[in-house]
């Protein structure tokens, strides 16, 4: 993952929220899910991931509970709360607007160059 794309500030939270919108997952599952979906392009440091999880749980966007994996291993499962779902909706809408505007400006610049 050393050669993965560095994450823009704030995007990790959004990605975690999006990931968990598929259902409760433990930390390792979130990490692999993100790697798989981005075909390994997004570099998520495990330490950063867990820090983000604790922070988001503290803010009440996620809740967590110990459970058992399919391989009968104990793992801490995270799940979106109602506040988390609201957050995901707002953040992704803003992200979309943001990237659309940035992209349109960048494409303009290319044409005039």
């Amino acid at each position, binding site marked *: 993952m050393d050669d993965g794309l560095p994450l823009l500030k704030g995007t990790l939270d959004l990605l975690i929220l999006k990931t968990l919108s598929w259902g409760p997952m*433990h930390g390792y599952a979130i990490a692999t899910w993100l790697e798989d979906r981005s075909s390994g392009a997004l570099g998520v440091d*495990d*330490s950063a991931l867990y820090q983000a999880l604790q922070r988001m749980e*503290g803010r009440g966007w996620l809740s967590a509970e110990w459970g058992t994996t399919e391989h009968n*291993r104990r793992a801490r*499962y995270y799940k979106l*709360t109602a506040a988390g779902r609201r957050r995901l909706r707002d953040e992704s809408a803003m992200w979309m607007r943001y990237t659309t505007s940035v992209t349109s400006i960048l494409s303009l610049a290319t044409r005039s160059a």
Partner: protein
Amino acid sequence: MRDTPAYRRLLHLRLGGARQSAAEMDLEIESHIAMRVADLVRQGMDPDAARSAALARFGDFDAARARLHAAAYRRDKALRHRDRLVDLAADFRYALRQARRTPGFVAAVVLTLALGIGANAAMFSIVDRLLFRAPPMLRHPSSTHRIYLADAYRGKTLYNEYIPYARYVDFATSTTAFSRLAQANDIEMAIGSGPDTREMQVGVVTASFFDFFDAPPVLGHYYTAAEDRPPNGTAVAVLSYGFWHTRYAGAHNVLGQAIQIGATKYTIIGVAPRGFVGLWPGSPPAAFVPLTAYGREIAAGMLGRGDRWWTTYNFTWATVIAERKPNVSVAAATADLTSAYARSYQTATATTPGMQPITVDRPRGIVASILSERGPNESSTAKVATWITGVAIVVWLIACANVANLLLARALRRRREIAVRLALGVSRARLASQLVTESVAFALGGGVMGVLIAQWGGAVLRSQFLSGSAQPAVATDARTVLYAGAAALLAGLLAGLAPIFQTRGVDLADHLKAGVREGTYQRSRLRIALLVFQGTLSVVLLVGAGLFVRSLRQVNQVPLGYDPSHVLEVELAMRGAALDSARNVALRERLLDEAASMPDVASASRQLAVPFAMHWAMRLYVTGIDSVARLGQFEMNAVSPAYFRTMGTRILAGRGISDADRDGATRAMVVSQSMAKTLWPGRDPIGECVKIQADTVPCTYVVGVAEDIKARELDNDPGLYYYLSAAQFHPDDGGLFVRTRGPATDAQEAVRRQLQRLMPGASYVVLEPLSDLLGEETRSWRLGATMFVVFGSLALVLAAIGLYGVVTYNVAQRTHELGVRAALGARMSDLARLVVREGLQLTVFGVAIGSGIALVVAPWVAPLLFRESPRDPWVFGLVAAVLLVVAALASFVPAHRAARADPMQALRSD
């Protein structure tokens, strides 16, 4: 996958702390690494290499782990906090749900608390202003002081707040403990000219006064020390914000305009900011003028004694305030002031004849609170207010006890529900917090209502205690609302504790069994104690009420020797209109004729002295008596013929003053009965000769004897009083008494207008009902009586409701038992007696303890009473009787209901 707070608390938060969070984080990291290693091995990696790779994904593993421990700890702290809020919200919703189910109960609780809290908020708003709240905008309220001078005089210590200007200057130059000093007084003066002239408060203050405040002027500037130099300063004035708005509509061109204040025309140089009232929040000044600019009028007030007002130590007239330097203690400042006073006293003895030697006077300086009611010369109003606050707190205690009792009764009713919840594993702490949240919610409701009650009822109280026009609201005053909130919160906690106390002993099995609660009747000791406590406090308050009411009755029954109702006092303020003696006489004659000719006026007379307000005394010489002065203080009034009719003072022998006693005729005097007895015991005083001021002057002959009047004190007034003819003595001085046909206040304005037309130049008349002057004398008793009666009745009503509630509840609990008794042949009256007896027993306890407390406390109120023993058996007896009757009624109603119940139904219901 539920995220219940209870789960989290049970599983891992109960241990709490950083260690717990870290341990859990380690578990999670370990689980993560294990899964990654398993995946990597599955992909064909060697297990050791896989583990290294997994750890590497954390970067610097040890640092990452430490960071994650910290993150987990922060998370848990945040979650705990959130849980508490969630619990509280749930408890609150639960309380509201319960409240909706029992609206009558909630109304009783909230209303009881509202009355208790309202009484307190109202009293607090008064006492706070009298005793605690420093004047607004003061820069350093805690180190700003009012200065008093203590002198020993004839074995007593006199505390003087009014200090000569010269002494203020001595202090300002020779003390080192203070960073600044100022001298100030608020004086009622006529502002404006012509028909707009109104008497208003004016702050007469040194230039340094404004430095004590953080109150930059909104317009112009304050005057400087250069404009405030004796003897006459500069005639400049700073308007208050309020006056600027009412009189000048806030116009900016006021600066430079002239304004007549008192005898002087001032130039307006500034406007103080909104809310600046100097030291006088109760009577905010309309304007501020330099102390020295007022000097001319001070000199006039000194009646031409010839001294220079700014150097004499003889004329005391204004307060000194001082700000302590930051590192100087009050004790050090006091010592500094005392030595400055001693030096100043020595200076004064050198120039002023007749002063006591310093060894006798023992001058001391006192650095007191800026609030005069906390200084050595506090008024009796402040004392009474403090007492009434104690009373209000007692009412609050009764309200708390009542609510505790109501909550207890309900807790007992809900025993089974509580037992069920305990059995289901709800922790006692959780249950307790729920009960307290509930009672606090009620209490806050009560607090809101209480503030509204205080707002409404408090206006009446404030007009009794606080003089002046500024009477700020309760509900918009942060301090009062805060106090009410604290009182409510504390009430909620106290009352909420009672049922918790009860749940401690809850035996799960017992209460889960149906039928138990209806079967047995248990007296709750706590409830009985609360009832007795309420009864006790009510007795104490009602005894206080009785003592004050009897005092007030005594006060009102004191024969004054005149009838103050329907009498207006007319005072003449000449304000620089310098008339010669003849024109002064003529003006007064014209005013008297004018007043007497008005249809609203029954009669009018001239006067020099006013009872309880203005006193005249002169040296008297009587043949055969060495020193008349040794026999007592003889007071004098100079009056016209209609005086005795106007005042309603009876002539007992001889005649009153008549038209014959005019200027140039033989001087006549009417003496009071006591004066006649003192000077000529056993003889007819008519025709006796008295020489006034010197024993070389011609005789003044006694022509009549009038009944004694009270002029100085309601109690023990010596009654040594005599009357001269206004035509013969100081005919160019004094004012009028006017007896009106209807109520004095109705005619006041018409009379004022009529008389004002005759006043020359800027001079004017001031009218005041005589009963108002006397009202000041009797105020503390009126206040005490009113307040004790109001709060005492409130306490009685609350206690009665409490008793009624408890007896009703007990009867409901005993339905079964009473039914059995009835079935076994008990008569209705037997059953009723059974129930009433219990209520009365409790009350007798309360009366006994309460009377005991009242007897012990009594000596402290004695100085506030009037010709009334604080242990008056009548009062104690009456209070006991009232309490027993009320208790009997409160328990009879439910007893009667119980007795009429059908025994069969009671027996079957189980």
